[in-house]
């Protein structure tokens, strides 16, 4: 799978192409499809408790992917994505209970609602950089929370129940929520994957490395950042909507809690910053820890905080970053590699192919 970018061998310039995939990736795809198929079968044989737990896992995975898209790829560390998680949750209530649409349809629409809010917010926040941008995102989350928590129409501090979902037959609700959760998780992975393979993805890696240099190379930094910010809002909104369906109750303190950022941060820092594989691994690890340690209450959050701080300080690329670097494995073919088609004149080696170690690593 190579792009049409090729060169004719001319004076001393070897023929090349830009390759993204290696033969290994075919196997990765098969494994991925198999896993998704297995997960899709779950509602037909597993217990309700397990199903609902998996939905929680899916939402955390989606959240981590979106947070990583912003932070690891666009260099925008946000500690305010809970604004969009909460908007997604309240969006379901608004669209399903108030506007009367089917609660399942409300999930993607809630994502759109969050994205629409993100559109004017992004440019405002982009006036801030780095750590101040981060706190700015928090302010926005606070503003949204205060509005929702203080007006009677949205239930104020005590929140709302998603009545239209509660009224669905229980099996339909459980299974439907599950598939929406699976959809949001797989969708978030695919969304990030295809985004990174596109021109925007190339722009993002340039921006992440050097904002100013990217701009002088013609990259529209502002538009790329805004696109990513809006997409991340959509993803967080959709995931928040699924959470709302899973819990049936929404309430401002929980919906807009900073803990959403904390979870995403833990997952991404531990699993791997700036890769697609990282948040997947991080989610699995975090979730496993959650199941085993939540009985200890506050001290488990403390432990996670300590782990996150140590890893962020010492191993910022996370577990996957270590694995990827050590064994040069990249499961998702998003990186672009320069591959020589024919030996440069004067060389007597054979033609290089996609499975050889890459000659140049622009990604």
């Amino acid at each position: 799978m190579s792009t049409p970018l090729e060169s004719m061998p001319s004076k001393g310039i070897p023929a090349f192409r830009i390759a993204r995939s290696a033969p290994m990736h075919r196997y990765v795809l098969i494994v991925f499809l198999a896993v998704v198929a297995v997960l899709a079968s779950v509602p037909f044989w597993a217990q309700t408790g397990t199903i609902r737990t998996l939905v929680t896992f899916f939402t955390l995975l989606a959240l981590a992917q979106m947070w990583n898209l912003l932070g690891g790829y666009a260099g925008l560390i946000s500690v305010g994505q809970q604004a969009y998680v909460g908007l997604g949750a309240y969006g379901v209530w608004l669209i399903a209970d108030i506007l009367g649409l089917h609660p399942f349809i409300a999930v993607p629409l809630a994502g759109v609602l969050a994205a629409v809010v993100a559109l004017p917010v992004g440019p405002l926040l982009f006036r801030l950089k780095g750590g101040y941008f981060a706190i700015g995102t928090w302010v926005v989350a606070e503003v949204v929370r205060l509005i929702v928590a203080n007006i009677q129409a949205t239930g104020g501090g005590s929140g709302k129940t998603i009545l239209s979902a509660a009224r669905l037959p229980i099996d339909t609700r459980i299974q439907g929520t599950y598939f929406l959760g699976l959809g949001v998780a797989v969708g978030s992975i695919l969304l990030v994957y295809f985004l990174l393979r596109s021109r925007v993805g190339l722009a993002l890696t340039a921006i992440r490395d050097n904002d100013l240099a990217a701009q002088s190379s013609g990259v529209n930094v502002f538009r790329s950042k805004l696109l990513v910010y809006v997409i991340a809002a959509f993803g967080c909104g959709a995931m928040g909507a699924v959470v709302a369906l899973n819990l049936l109750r929404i309430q401002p303190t929980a919906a807009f809690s900073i803990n959403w950022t904390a979870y995403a941060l833990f997952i991404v820092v531990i699993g791997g910053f700036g890769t697609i594989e990282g948040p997947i691994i991080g989610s699995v690890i975090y979730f496993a820890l959650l199941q085993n340690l939540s009985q200890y209450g506050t001290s488990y959050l403390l432990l996670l905080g300590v782990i996150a701080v140590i890893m962020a300080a010492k191993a910022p690329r996370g577990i996957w970053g270590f694995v990827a670097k050590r064994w040069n494995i990249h499961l998702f073919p998003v990186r672009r590699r320069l591959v020589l088609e024919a030996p440069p004149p004067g060389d007597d080696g054979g033609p290089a192919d996609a499975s050889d170690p890459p000659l140049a690593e622009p990604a």
Partner: protein
Amino acid sequence: MDWVNVAVQGVLLGGLFALFATGLALVFGVMRLVNLAHGDLGILAAFVALFLLDSFSLGVFWASLASIAIMFCVGYVLQRGLLNYTIGTDDTRPILVTFGLSIIIQNALIMQFSADSQGLDAGAIENASVRITDQLAVGWYPLIVFGVAVAVIAALQLFLNRTTLGRAFRATSDDQEAAELMGINNRHIYSLAMAIALAIVALAGILLAVRTTFDPSQGPFRLIFAFEAVIMGGMGSIWGTLIGGIILGVSQTLGAQAFGAGWGIFVGHVVFLAVLAFKPSGFFAKTVTA
């Protein structure tokens, strides 16, 4: 008449915000670090004072002084031992690490002290007021806090402008590599800056704790208000944080008066966002880029 009273209260409240903001601005100015645990460290100082008060039967004054001294040392060690390793060309690491720190501090405080609200009792001074005009009465305590804020900011500015060490701070802030060539040890300067910043935020946290109740979850709010004061006042200006604090304070009190108690903070946020939209470099910016 009521409005004037409220506005004056807002101005005085701004003093407290400015005190929280000063440390944040100092650290950012010297080493471009935004400490997301800044508010939590101020609250931590209040708990330390509380602990000293309860465990050693120290008066509020001595417990507070001890807490400030402790936080000064904590700041030095924190910077030298951890945060110095996160500073570099990568913006993201300090944010991740200080956010993690924020979570650690909050949860450690909950484990040690529970999530309940606490207070630091300073006696009669808290409620006494002074009458300025027929219509205007001002609490002694808010007046004192405002005075302290102005004094601290003035002292800091004097330190930066008139002392050799202060000059070293400014040089490091301008160009840290060139500063090394002057014989300035960056790691030490950064640690001193953080130590001073935490001593100031400790003072702020304690003054807050005397004025109102506090609990482990208050840190992030203090951070947000400090941040809003810094941005509105303008980057690079210590006195600017006082102006920013005053704008925020007045917005909050007038907002609460106009729309009800629950909306005061909201109005403050809205004013901040408006300033960000229309005057993003703040009112007194010395540096144009963050």
